[in-house]
Each structure stands twice: as structure tokens, then as C-alpha cells.
């Protein structure tokens, strides 16, 4: 299973939190694949990160279904509570905020992924609790 580049890159990210330049260089030697191609792959996918990320990763769903069920502007609330814009990491290094196209939880909207796991039927209280937990 581990001979596929995408699986290997994901494993590196699971281990290190992101896919660093050094990791790509090492992989390039091991796999005999030019580092430029590996970087091309790593930078293509939204869920692979080539820069260091926060300890917790929040990926907010941006689908029309979530948009239609978002009665409190979850996007703004997240930015306010975390204190950064989407695409950024909080100063304490604890939370990175991302937007994602759709996480397939349209029947439990609005929803997001917290470290890869869905958190659904978001409310203001739920969002605040999650941020608090991420900070502790």
C-alpha cells in the first residue's frame, strides 16, 4: 500500500503535521522522483500542507447546503473566535482555519471537519466550545 506517492505524502503529513521541504528532498532520493514533481503533487491538494500548521485543523464546509442552513454566519464567528482569517494559523499555534468545498455532511449542515472528523449541525455555542477545547 505504501508505494503510492499520495499515500506516502499523507503519511509524512500525519507524522510531521505538514510536508516539509526536507521531507520532500528525502522522499525524492528514496523514491527516485524529482523533488519538483513531488512538490507539484504536495501543493496541488487542499488537504496537503507544505507549511507548518496549527495543532488543530478546522476545515469549514463551503457548500450551498451549508450556506443555506447557516443562520449565524459561522465563517465570521470562527474568524472572530480564533482571531485570524481563513488560511491562517492562530498566534499560539493551536488552530489553523481552512475552508473546504464540501465534506458530504449536507444533511447535517452547517458542518466542518475538526482534525479530519466531522462536527455537524453547528451552532454558536458548539463553535465556541470547540474553539475553547482546541485552545486547552
Amino acid at each position: 500500500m505504501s508505494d503510492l506517492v499520495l499515500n506516502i505524502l499523507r503519511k509524512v503529513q500525519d507524522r510531521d503535521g505538514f510536508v516539509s521541504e526536507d521531507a520532500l528532498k528525502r522522499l525524492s532520493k528514496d523514491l527516485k522522483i524529482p523533488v519538483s514533481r513531488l512538490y507539484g503533487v504536495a501543493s496541488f491538494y487542499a488537504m496537503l500542507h507544505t507549511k507548518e500548521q496549527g495543532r488543530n485543523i478546522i476545515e469549514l464546509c463551503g457548500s450551498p447546503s451549508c450556506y443555506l442552513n447557516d443562520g449565524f454566519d459561522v465563517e465570521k464567528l470562527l474568524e472572530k473566535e480564533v482571531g485570524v482569517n481563513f488560511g491562517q494559523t492562530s498566534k499560539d499555534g493551536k488552530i489553523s482555519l481552512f475552508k473546504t468545498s464540501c465534506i458530504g455532511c449536507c444533511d447535517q449542515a452547517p458542518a466542518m471537519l475538526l482534525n479530519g472528523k466531522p462536527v455537524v449541525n453547528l451552532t454558536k455555542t458548539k463553535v465556541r466550545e470547540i474553539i475553547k477545547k482546541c485552545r486547552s
Partner: protein
Amino acid sequence: MQILKKTELAALKKAQELGAEKVIELLDKKGLVGRGGASFPTGKKWRFAFDAKADEKFVICNADEGEPGTFKDKFILENNPETLIEGILIASYVVGAKRAFIYLRGEYDYLKGNIEKVIKSVIKRSRLDVSVEIVVGAGSYVCGEETAIIKSIEGFRGQPYYKPPFPPVSGLWGKPTIINNVETLTCAAQAVLFDDWNSSLRLFSVSGCVDNPGVFELPVSVRLSKVLELAKPRGKLKALFFGCFGGCMPYVDMEMTPENVCGQDCVHGSCSVIVVDDSRSIVDLCYVIAKFFAYESCGKCTPCREGTVRVLFLMKKLKDMKATKEDLALLEELAHHIKNTSLCGLGQSATNHIITGLKHFREDFEERIL
């Protein structure tokens, strides 16, 4: 629900007794068509790969369900993975593949552990010499396109390429490859085993402004009023979007066949219906969808890469009531150019929401003009 019926390895056994050619004939006879959106006859696809001469062949299960508003494959992955794996084994047996892949979208990574367990158990009991590996995607909508999946598994950027050659002739690493969607492969196992298997049933994913969103199994020719009766719209109904790529239409109580949906200039796709109530402007929805396409364009062909960004720019102007009449005309012209000149299905459908939005709800757009 028919899709939840378990085949308990009896479908594989029956397939082995029938032999590859008879299984293909059976699928043709039962009328199984692809459930990923293109409705290509499954038996025909398998026959291409069966006929192709090669030392190695592959089967890929497309579990990259990325279309916003679609969650029926997730429903199968969670509730009937055993039958899906059996479908993959049957496909592998029929075409002579020893290695199969499940391309699982990164957003469903949390399902991987359980699917792996099921793979192990089903393969062990089947005593078949086939490996089924999970490749976890990493957040790319275009990787649901079959040639992009191939590139992604091969370890390249997941960008589509021109067809032909089609994957059943030359696919993964240049070898004949069957790529079928989760629902299709699950149905394949059920169609082989059950005499009363009904080819007209589809899984509708219904979401948006409804009180009872979810996956509903209904005949493909079900009336829209029946779908909505189940989903319970909230507020007064205004429009329906068929995912992000399928465009929108006002409510018409028609049979939901692909032909009827196409008659509204929309694309039926994989039966996702997003319900919109009359408190919303179609412009705001189109802005959300324009953001999606600008973000998900893979960047390979110019019309889609540059066009989706310009569309988003114009949609933002419209949304903020800063667009002129000329901007609207430009938006409409651009929408058609992108649709007509993009390389793959993503670009070709990246402006359906705007084209159909303007066709059915032009007043919403004109209202926002300076």
C-alpha cells in the same frame, strides 16, 4: 432499501459459476448504468476491459464523492461496505484484475479504518487472489473525474487528460482499467445475485432549505413533488440546484428523469437536489458556487483556470450591487465560453449555475445591477 441488501459473498459465487462473459451479459440485461453521473452502461464498460489484451488490469472504485449536495456514496460506505467490496471483487474477477483500488476522498478519511477491516474480512472469506487498496485523496474535486483519479493514483497532480484512449482500454499505468462509482459497484453485486433487483431505483441526496434532509431511495422517474414531500421544504419553495455543477430551475412538478431535467437545461448527475426557499436570491447562491469552481479548477486548461476566476470577480460585483449592465452581459458571454471550450467535465459545467440562473431567474440578477 434495496441498496442496503447484503449479498454475503453469494453474488461473487454466482459470478464465478456464471463466468465472466455471462456476468457482463447479465448486467446488460438487468440494465445497470453508472451512478456517478454519466449513466454509462456498466456491462459495456466491463466488456471493453474484458476484451482488452494486457498482462495486467485494474479496477478502481471511485469514492471521491465531491459534488456539493451529494452524500449517498458516504451512506453506502457507512452502511453496506461489505456489498461494495464484493462488487469490486466481482469486477476484478470479470476483467481479470489482481489489484483494485478504492479512491476515497480525503474528507472521508475517517471512514478508512472500518472499510479496511471490511476489505480484510471479505477478501479472506472470498479466497480470491485480489488486493483491494485504499488510496486516500487529499481534497480535490476534479479527482472525481476518471482520468484525474488515474493521475492521482499514479502519483501526479490530479489533472484530467484528453480521452481517448478511454480507461477500459488504457488507464492506470497504461493498463485496461475499470473505474466505477461506489453505488454502481454495490449495485453490480446486487444485480448479479437478486432476481428481483430493480434497475430504476436511485439514491437521491436532498439538502438545503428542508426539514428532513437525507438520502432517499426512489425510482428515477419519481415526481419532484414526491421527493419534496419526503424532504419537507422549509418556507416557500423557489429553486432547486442539482449540486454545484447541474444548474438550477424553478419548481416544476415533473418526473425526475435525466431527460426532463435536461429539458430545463440542467444536469441530473447523481441525483443531488439542493432546495432553495424564496427568501434567497439566486445571485447569492451563484456566488457561493462561483467560489467553489474558482477554487476547484485544476489549472490545466485556460478557459476554466482563468474563466472561473473572472466569473467569481463578476459575481462578487453583482452580489455587492456594484456591477453594470455590461458586466452582466460579459458574465453571460463568459459563462458560455467556459462551458464550450473547457477540457473536462468540471470546466464544461463550471458555469451551468449562471447559465440556468439567468435563464430561469434573470430578475434576481437584474435587480442587483447598479
